[in-house]
């Protein structure tokens, strides 16, 4: 199975009727970094939040369509949403450290699931902080409040928090907006490592970041999928005029 996620003709509306996504169909490959890029309001974040059913919390109504993860439609009302969210983790644009220590942040998801064994929890803390390239910086202060860290460190802790649950898919919604270039570089490097084990979907905060990190890239414009293809070639040789215009900065 090369396609981890298959999206079939997904359409979505806001409660007031405005359309957010129109007939999106795409296949997302396993163990790769798929990038969703485009100007604001294009539907990228909305799509991301469909993948972990976070949209259930808002007044967005699914119009129609299916999202198959490992051949199961996650939009089905009978889906176990809790299990889904452990399988599909999300890192948000602003780092949101929970009001607890670094260690408690990381193990939060595991404790929710009922994991109590200290050995398992400690192991998860070390493993995920290493994967997020921040273990060396915080290993001596795991019991300090997470809010004491810098923005870039907080975001990597948030990534570790997600990885501690050993998800299969990792969603990142503009994770480096607001971070300094050094932290941004660390996060992007982490992505390259991550894709070996996980399926990574990234909404970048700039076209350049998209070009740096994408194995596959999808261009979204006002709720429609304009172009989707190989990351290497799409940025140098886009097929659609609108894609080219956006990449060249003719509109933003």
């Amino acid at each position, binding site marked *: 199975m090369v396609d981890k996620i298959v999206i079939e003709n997904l359409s979505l509306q806001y409660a007031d009727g405005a359309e957010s996504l129109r007939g999106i169909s795409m296949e997302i490959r396993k163990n790769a970094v798929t990038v969703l890029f485009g100007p604001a309001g294009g539907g990228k974040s909305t799509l991301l939040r469909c993948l*972990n059913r*976070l949209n259930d*919390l808002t007044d967005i109504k699914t119009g129609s369509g299916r999202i198959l993860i490992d051949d199961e439609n996650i939009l089905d009302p009978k889906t176990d949403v*809790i*299990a889904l*969210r*452990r399988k599909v*983790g*999300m890192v*948000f644009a*602003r780092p*949101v*450290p*929970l*009001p*607890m220590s670094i260690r408690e942040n990381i193990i*939060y*998801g595991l404790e*929710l*699931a009922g994991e109590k064994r200290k050995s398992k929890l400690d192991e998860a803390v070390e493993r995920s902080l290493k994967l997020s390239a921040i273990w060396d910086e915080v290993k001596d202060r795991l019991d300090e*409040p*997470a*809010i004491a860290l810098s923005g870039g460190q907080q975001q990597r802790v*948030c990534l570790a*928090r*997600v990885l501690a*649950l050993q998800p299969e898919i990792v969603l990142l919604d503009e994770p480096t907006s607001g971070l300094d270039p050094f932290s941004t570089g660390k996060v992007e490097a982490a992505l390259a490592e991550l894709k070996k084990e996980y399926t990574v979907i990234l909404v970048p905060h700039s076209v350049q970041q998209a070009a740096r990190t994408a194995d596959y890239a999808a261009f979204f414009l006002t709720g429609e999928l304009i172009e989707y293809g190989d990351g290497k070639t799409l940025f140098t040789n886009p097929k659609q005029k609108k894609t080219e215009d956006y990449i060249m900065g003719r509109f933003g």
Partner: protein
Amino acid sequence: MMTKFLSRNRHTVQRLGFSAITLVAVFTVLPIIGTVIYILVKGGSAISWEFLSGFPHDGMRAGGILPAIIGTLYLTLGTAVFSVPLGIAAAIYLSEYAKDNQRTRLIRIAIINLAGIPSVVYGLFGLGLFVLFLKFGTSILAASLTLSIMTLPVIISTSEEALRAVPQSFRTVSISLGATRWQTINRIILKEALPGILTGVILGLERAAGETAPILFTGAAFFLPRLPFSPFDATMALPYHLFVISTQVPEMPIQIQYGTALVLLVFVLTMNVIATVIRSRARARRQW
């Protein structure tokens, strides 16, 4: 030339205006401080261990006010038992579960309504329902239940505000990590809102402790020879005691009146101070 004249005029106006407003504020605040100091001074001499631990004699004209103090403590506790869990739960409902629809609006109107009902009308209600209909009689139980319903709106609104103050992003993150709504509330939201909730609870109970009208016909007794030991007993209480000795007992020593007022004041102010301290300490320690 013109602008110089105009600007000088405007600044004079401003200075006058500021002084006037400052005076208004001073005249509002001075009586508060004055009241407290006055009662402190006049009542201080009545305070003694006998006063605080003894029973009244000679038709209240001598002796202590222990039963009134204990009675107020019992009533405050009784109010807490009923209104705190119910109030916090209702606040959780409004903050975390309720959708923005007609039914929720109805609940909010009901709460606003409860908050505005005159305290003596609560007394009537308590008399009608708890004392007579449910046959609890004039009792701590009836008075506590009446005070609880009166305190409910305060606890609900302050608790809801405390819950809403917790950043929405915590909820989003928690849910995205696989938490149920209650797990999120229990593990994060309640914990972070607790100081605010506590402040509201204490302020609500402080109000209940000082109220006279709701307990007039539901639980207050003028004189009891011994301390109440069951919820079905009537009780003396500080606010009611003060009311009676200052209006209905002839040749009541002024000393004792001020002393009683002082004890009630201290009781209420202490709660106020505790609430304020909790609030400012929590603000300093917040991790968001």
